[in-house]
């Protein structure tokens, strides 16, 4: 059931590069990463590619397949017509290192800028109590495997390098949302999300959600709720009025600015 797949793979580095043609034997049930590995083992031993788990769990093998940000290990060849040429390029929002490997340090820098979880003391018996419904929203965001495909596809930085310093990107909006919704966290992260993280740059065009291999509903469940939380703080007439006459959201009591 095998056949010969035609592939174009981008080879090169920051100095330049191009799409090289490769013909590779593939068989039933294989994924793009298998084909890449075969090219590596038989035709181009030095073809640079990142991968670890080959199971869609580590988020290392991010690349663009026929122009779409995908995990190579989760892109099945059966999705393509055997006659079709499959083009694989590195992610295009990050500086390229070599071949399919890009420098994703942007994301690690953004991770460092984020104030971490700040819990109150434990309960008297040394444990913590949280209800399942209260942690579920955060759990969705923590499914993130840090493949950075959402960051790659986000036009705010993909098309505008100059926005990088001011924009944390969808992956980290997930973190802000996770912490802001955490039943125990003692920080108020809205001002930071809006300011330092650049939440306002996002124009909710949902490409991050479209590419997320974990199916996290980044825009609907994290970004927009965060935008709404910012509105609570800054732009809502009723919340403002409420706070003037002593009505406030007690659910947020005891939080301090992060």
């Amino acid at each position, binding site marked *: 059931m095998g056949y010969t797949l035609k592939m174009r793979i981008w080879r090169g*580095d920051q100095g330049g590069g191009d799409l090289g043609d490769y013909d590779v034997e593939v*068989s*039933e*049930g*294989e*994924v793009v990463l*298998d084909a890449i590995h075969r090219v*590596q*083992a*038989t035709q*181009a*031993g*030095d073809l*640079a*590619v*990142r991968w*670890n*788990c*080959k*199971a*869609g*769990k*580590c*988020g*290392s093998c991010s690349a663009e397949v026929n122009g779409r940000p995908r995990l190579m290990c*989760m892109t*099945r060849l059966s999705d393509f017509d055997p006659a079709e040429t499959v083009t694989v390029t590195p992610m295009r929002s990050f*500086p390229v*290192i*070599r*071949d399919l*490997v890009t*420098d*994703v*340090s942007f994301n*690690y*820098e953004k*991770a*460092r800028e984020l104030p*971490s*979880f700040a*819990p109150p003391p*434990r309960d008297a018996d*040394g*444990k*913590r*109590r*949280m*209800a*399942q419904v209260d*942690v579920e929203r*955060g*759990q969705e965001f*923590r*499914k993130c*495997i*840090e493949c950075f495909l959402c960051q790659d596809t986000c036009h705010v930085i993909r098309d505008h390098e100059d926005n990088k310093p001011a924009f944390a990107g969808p992956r980290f909006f997930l973190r802000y949302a996770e*912490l802001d919704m*955490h039943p125990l966290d003692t920080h108020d992260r809205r001002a930071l999300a809006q300011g330092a993280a650049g939440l306002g740059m996002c124009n909710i065009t949902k490409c991050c959600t479209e590419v997320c291999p974990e*199916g996290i509903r980044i825009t609907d469940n994290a970004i927009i709720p965060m935008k709404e939380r910012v509105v609570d703080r800054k732009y809502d007439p009723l919340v403002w009025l409420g706070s003037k006459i002593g009505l406030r959201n007690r659910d947020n009591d005891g939080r301090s600015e992060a």
Partner: protein
Amino acid sequence: MGDRHPMTGNEMSGAEAGGMERHRYDVVVVGAGGAGLRAAIAAHEAGARTAIVCKSLLGKAHTVMAEGGIAAAMGNRWPEDNWEVHFRDTMRGGKMLNNWRMAQLHAQEAPERVLELEDWGALFDRTDDGLISQRDFGGHRYARLAHVGDRTGLEMIRTLQQRAVALGIDVFMECTVTELLKVDGAIAGAFAYWRETGRFVVFEAPSVVLATGGIGKSFKVTSNSWEYTGDGHALALRAGAALINMEFVQFHPTGMVWPPSVKGLLVTESVRGDGGILTNSEGKRFMFDYIPEYFRDETADTVEEADRWYEDKKNNRRPPELLPRDEVARAINSEIKAGRGTPHGGIYLDIASRRSPDFIRKRLPSMYHQFKELADVDITQEPMEIGPTCHYVMGGIEVDADTELSAVPGLYAVGECSGGMHGSNRLGGNSLSDLLVFGRRAGEAAASYCVSLGEGRPAVRAEDVKAAERDALAPFEVATGPGGGTENPYTIQQDLQQSMNDLVGIIRTRPELERSLEELRRLRERARRMTVEGHRQYNPGWHLALDLRNMLLVSECIARAALEREESRGGHTRDDFPGPSPEWGAKNLVLRLAADGSAVDLAHQPLPVMPDELKKFFE
């Protein structure tokens, strides 16, 4: 240069002597999985200047693949659970070959380590009272595994990663350690290369913690990632430390068998914990035929009792599907051998006919996803096809139970690359807790060792660095040497994986093991003639050639120990010696590198003696 490294933001110092990048730390942790991160956090908190060096990006380590949970006797579901029961389960699961002290510390400290994760932001599934939920797993008497759906490992690594980042620990990502540097028998540092640029780095540090994981990549069918090339095992051997229990390799009973490209990929044990059963091609639930004497008292022997157990755990015994992994893997293996396998050479794991689609999707989301995406199988409708896959090595670097110190001063080992804790077979869920408990202990011990040295730190010797550099560049040289240039590292790796799978696999015999040693000798020979194409910048061929040295060395250790141990126990099954023998049950096999580095020496060593107050649990 004063540059910052683009991946990590760490200071680079390329301008120093010889153009070599050098860093000084108190503690260098090799590996950024659960164990490495936990060790680094502990070392940092103890005041040591700490660096993490890892082969992949931060957060990609194999720990993310752990699905089931973290075993810890917190008693959230079963108040009667406590460390003593956990200790007993662990020892029995390991067929009493465990280092008792490690098993004890592990059982005692695991609960606090789990709670600590929660302090750092982990979001575990909850019980109705809001406590951390715990689930059932093979070999554990009570529901004991703290979990987050079926992605517990991801939660753990993310939590530890975020903690390490918050503490500002330096991380050297995509940087591979190829040699440990010693002075007067003690650790002085480590030599490494950046995968990205191929440039070399020297770490000067009196303490090195190895947390490099396992050896699974030497086998063809494995659930392990490419990183699992036994680096820590080999580094320690070369540095003069010993390995124990290397014959014990755990084959996880349930790995995917189809499609071929994902063969070996793990199917979590939680499928069985949540009600999944194993059937053969005749539709028979065959595990009832394979209940060993040892576990007969606590295992259900009728389908009715087994099914009742899920609802009423007090009055029924556990289904045989939840026996320890070695038992189940062997049973599956014999069913397949007897011709009762599935079309793709596996066995059916069926949860579709036993639980509602909603339940399955909620409890096992990543399994659902994995089968849907990779095999086009809807596990809420059809059974899965599964078979044994190489999953974990119980053996590893021999360490002191309390401090994880190896035979070499300054060299510590934790996690899968250390040995002793799990004896001959590891229980599911005990691995994640192992990482946390001993990671912390090693980090603290490494930091205090460093303090104890005061000013008297060993200084790395220039000639050692030169030698390490030469060795690392050797694969480029071979190609030009006599008879060189004819072998491709990828082919050698494939052949190695094939022979290990065929000859040192789940069922072993003397002739096959002898042949494997012969094969390994030939592979080492071939490895001397490897070609590596291209240059040093991000060159996977070169990286593999370097890893291959480690894989060959560690594979030899496994085969040698497997040949020596003439009994069957836990993760070591000899067809020619089918039962356990009391005499072998009292000793470990210890492997060291001969002084001239040319051969592996093997010795027998009696087990440490368990004190009477612990012995009483097994009467």
